């Protein structure tokens, strides 16, 4: 297993944010983590990245326990997070953001360079000397993903990559993720847009109020009308419309 989480619990000021989380991701998988706002999706990613310290439970990545590893070391081990809201470095240029991404390489071998990231997201080549803060939301998302790729991740954690993006841009970002996964990158994708997330992944976990309440093949979860309706609201018509457009 690339990632194994056992019985993980996280609390903020004594209030449980996550309880009894068991989750595994195998090498090469593209797994979705979906659930309503406030379910604890970002908390789980931040616990994996070491930014939030779990109260109990264990996290192991590529056979190595992460419980006492500093966040910057976790990134350098090849478990990289693209955080919610992109968090690009606005005062650095596009190229500087990408070069900074190489820091996470540590002693590992490079898999992407400026040229291959620019091939994946051509807009980043056009805007190379611009300050990252001047990019649009979609371009910033591409920069954030490209920047993570520069660090040769073995596994990528993505927090709401579709947030605030126009549907067309969203499709572009998800296409890029599917292509990266086809090239062997393991991905855990956190999404509020459940329909879209289930459509692009093979397996999914449903998180609600800090617990995993469903898990299974994405197609099965998507087919189960109750899950979409009850936990995630109905978004199917929108996606249908979008498919018709593209």
């Amino acid at each position: 297993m690339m990632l194994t989480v056992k019985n993980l619990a996280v609390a903020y000021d004594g209030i449980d944010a996550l309880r009894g989380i068991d989750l595994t991701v195998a090498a090469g998988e593209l797994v979705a983590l979906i659930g309503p706002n406030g379910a604890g999706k970002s908390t789980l990613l931040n616990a994996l990245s070491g930014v939030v310290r779990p109260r109990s439970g264990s996290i192991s990545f590529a056979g190595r326990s992460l419980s006492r590893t500093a966040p910057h070391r976790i990134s350098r081990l090849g478990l990289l997070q693209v955080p919610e809201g992109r968090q690009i470095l606005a005062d650095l240029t596009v190229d500087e953001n990408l070069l900074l991404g190489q820091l996470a390489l540590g002693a590992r071998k490079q898999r992407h360079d400026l040229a291959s990231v620019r091939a994946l997201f051509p807009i980043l080549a056009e805007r190379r000397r611009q300050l990252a803060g001047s990019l649009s939301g979609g371009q910033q998302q591409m920069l954030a993903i490209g920047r993570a790729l520069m660090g040769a991740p073995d596994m990528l954690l993505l927090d709401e990559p579709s947030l605030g993006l126009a549907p067309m841009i969203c499709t572009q970002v998800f296409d890029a993720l599917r292509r990266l996964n086809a090239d062997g990158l393991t991905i855990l994708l956190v999404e509020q847009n459940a329909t879209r997330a289930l459509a692009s992944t093979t397996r999914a976990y449903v998180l609600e109020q800090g617990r995993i309440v469903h898990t299974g093949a994405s197609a099965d979860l998507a087919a189960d009308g109750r899950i979409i309706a009850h936990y995630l609201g109905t978004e199917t018509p929108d996606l249908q419309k979008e498919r018709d457009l593209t």
Partner: protein
Amino acid sequence: MLAQQIMNGLVAGAVYALFALGFTLVFGVHRILNLAHGALLMAGAFIGLYAVLAGIPLWFAIILAMVGAGTLSVLIDVLAFRRLRASGQAEFGAIISSIGANLVLVSIAQRISETKVLRFPFATFPVVFYRFWGLRVSLLQLAIAGSVAFLLGLLSWLIFHTSLGRQVRAVAGNPRAAVLLGVNPDAIYLRTFFLSGAMAGLAGVLVGLSFNSVHFMMGEPYLLRAFVVVILGGLGSIAGAVVAGMGLGVLQTLATAYLPSGLTDTIIFSLLFLVLMVRPNGLFGVANTGVGRR
């Protein structure tokens, strides 16, 4: 005569810029107003002076002063600021604890020097003058201008063209995102504090040599001037600190030369208010600035 004063002012201003840069670097990266920065200038001057008195050649004494003041600066970070940073209460708490660090350093220096004004031995730095286009320039002034220009160049290369510089700017702009990219913020904090202290230490030796006077309170006026420089230039702006530092040096020299004595500070601070009325973020500043700005 005027040209001579302006040139003297530029040299004095170069030292202000050097000193203020460390102050603005720490502010830009840490959001900490390090009120012990003046004490670091004083500590640099003390280390340099005592090294020279011990028979160490000046060039090596200067290196010792820079390394010594840089190390003290790191120590202040570890002892006075690190715990506060972890608690997330840094902004106000750090001001108080930097006042404490300042008091400790100043009183140690007062003890060591027995409250006396110390002087470098005669001709520690060769007393040589040159004439260019009717201007009288000392070798010391040339050395000051040269070393400050070299360090400013080095610092801006470091900040804007190296991986360390990208990491410093990343931590200044968005520490959380920086960590997720594999930047170790503690290592960056140590380095910025060391750089900042080393520049203050060099400024201390240069000030001590220029006025041939080293005493335990010598950092205080420089700290006040650094505030002016940094606010005029825009908090966190490197170019701003350089331009404002030079400008302040010239202004101060002219005011001393042509106006009744005792008015210098009145003029400097009136100018500060005037600039703030027109440009509240300073000459080069923008709201929410960091060291990321050129």
